[in-house]
């Protein structure tokens, strides 16, 4: 087994899908978390370990991969959680990218330039972006053998794990909008994945962070 080091901030954020892949696969890794000052000094002292000056990065036996989704997909491929055929893998990618579109909206809502822009982004997110994408995901899930299993194929993939990571925010912080509860199959999928022993164990053990 190679040695894995995953480096990120003290958040779930962009690293959580990869942490969930490690958990689901039962694979050991070093879960390195920097605060802002540590990151500044890392960036300066070890810039070759951060090819694009950003985190997360994955170090695997001396190789460095950056870009959170490249890392998550690499790990999923290594551990058989990526989908079985090229088409299944593409369906997994489709889910992951669709969730990213919601995440973009949430980032604007939380970190927009000014209050007016944030309010506009919130309105758009809650009334358009999230319902549109969640509807499409509900449909996609349902079309996979009735939707009582997983997003793609007949076993857990990165699509389900990315969905869990992504909807933590919906459940914890977007409560007022009850955005997930309008979608029964998606809601049940989240509960089902969270009950998987390896996932449950990680969720209980992981550092509790706001984002």
């Amino acid at each position, binding site marked *: 087994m190679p040695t894995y080091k995953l480096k990120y901030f003290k958040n779930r954020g962009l690293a959580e899908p990869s942490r969930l892949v490690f958990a689901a696969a039962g694979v050991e890794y070093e879960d390195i978390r920097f605060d802002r000052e540590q990151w500044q000094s890392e960036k300066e002292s070890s810039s070759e370990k951060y090819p694009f000056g950003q985190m997360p990065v994955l170090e695997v036996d001396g190789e460095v*991969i950056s*870009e959170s*989704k490249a890392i998550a997909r690499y790990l999923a491929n290594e551990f058989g959680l990526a989908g079985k055929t090229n088409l299944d893998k*593409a369906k997994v990618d489709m889910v992951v990218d669709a969730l990213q579109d919601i995440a973009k909206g949430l980032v604007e809502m939380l970190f927009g330039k000014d209050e007016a822009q944030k309010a506009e982004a919130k309105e758009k997110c809650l009334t358009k972006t999230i319902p549109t994408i969640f509807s499409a995901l509900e*449909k996609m899930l349902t079309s996979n053998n009735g939707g009582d299993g997983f997003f793609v194929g007949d076993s857990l993939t990165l699509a389900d794990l990315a969905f869990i990571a992504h909807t933590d925010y919906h459940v914890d912080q977007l409560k007022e909008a009850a955005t997930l509860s309008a979608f029964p199959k998606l809601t049940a999928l989240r509960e089902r994945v969270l009950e998987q022993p390896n996932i449950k164990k990680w969720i209980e053990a992981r550092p509790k962070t706001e984002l």
Partner: protein
Amino acid sequence: MPQYRLMYFNIRARAETSRMIFAAAGVEYEDVRVAREQWPAEKASGKYPFGQMPCLEIDGKFTLAQSRAIGRYLANEYGLAGKDNLEKAKVDMVIYVCEDIYVGVRNIFFEKDETKKAEMKADFVVKADSILAALEKLLIANNGGNGYLVGDSLTWADLEFFVRMEYAPFFNAAILDQYPKLKALAERVSSVPEIAAWLKKRPKTDF
């Protein structure tokens, strides 16, 4: 060979890399370009899983959405994705970094306010320089940088890079002069016979 229909607007933007993958692989497909006026009716038809394009219809049976999912699927099918999981991850890394270039350029292109546009351009040049410097380093680390971005043959990372750098005139036409290996790579990509043929025959579009 499956029947492919790639559906998008009549622009390069988010479908061009997939069109280049088809060209490089020598695979036939229907290059559907939906006119802006037709789009509302098309969207309402429910054919597009996320109400967006590009989409790739495969054998009339399944429609794949999300431009990078489409690109990666085609690259994997036709051997342009990287040879093993690690190469594929490096290819993906380049794809995501090039996305940052695309989004920056797209925002500039669609900005109507001239003052804001100039400001965005200035900011973006700084960002693009930092991305290109990192890509130049990555390329050089790959056996001296006289081949391709990842591994020892063309991958869709090289195609995506080429497609994004076609937008250089929107922020700094001569930017690649500072990055000689990347500049040579772009020229190398455009000289691949199947790519050169596509570049010659494709519809000419603004964006």
